[in-house]
């Protein structure tokens, strides 16, 4: 549940989601669920010319299983906090 909580804290931030089919989508993180399915708002595709069918997609749901990376804003990553939370979780607390 660590990364689920982590992504929940990032809601409202601008992120880029790169999918396993190389499609990269930038948008505002609207919500996440336990499967790390992601909903984005105000999306735009990074390489728009290559994916013309995505032109009129403003909001989208991405299945967690097809995500390769989520690129975060640098200020969205608190490594120390994540490190502590990992140790806490490993201890079972």
């Amino acid at each position, binding site marked *: 549940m660590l990364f689920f909580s982590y992504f929940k804290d990032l809601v409202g931030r601008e992120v880029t989601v790169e*999918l396993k*089919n190389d*499609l990269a*989508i930038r948008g505002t993180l*609207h*919500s*996440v*669920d*336990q*499967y790390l*399915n*992601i*909903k984005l708002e105000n*999306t735009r595709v990074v390489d728009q010319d290559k994916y*013309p*069918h*995505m*032109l*009129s*997609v*403003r*909001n*989208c*749901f*991405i*299945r967690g*299983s*097809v995500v390769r990376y989520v690129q975060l804003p640098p200020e969205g990553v608190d490594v120390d906090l994540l490190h502590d939370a990992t140790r806490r979780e490993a201890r079972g607390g």
Partner: protein
Amino acid sequence: MSWAAPDDVFLSTSLASYLDKKLLVLLRDGRKLMGILRSFDQFANVVLEGACERLIVGDLYCDIPLGLYVIRGENVVLIGELDLEKEELPSNMTRVSTEEIRRAQRAERDATDLKGTMRKRMEFLDFD
């Protein structure tokens, strides 16, 4: 992604906020299906009414009507809400008939195959 109270629906990752809307569903094999979302579950299995497949080759496109589709969730990559205000495709793209798009697909495939054989011949010559 569970059934939530109506107020929560728009805040959660649930697909409920997309019900009865026209959507674009991207599948793992690269297919693009469009239709109206009528049902879904926690695996992102979805039911599309009035589904059609959009074939795109270069700047040609064609919509092939399919009817009512149940899509197994594991094949779903992305479900996008289509903004009806915006143009669905860039203005330079033209709609063509099924026969024409099939011909364009064949031409594209032949071109790729040719490129492959050319490369193989070059490898045989073993430059560098």
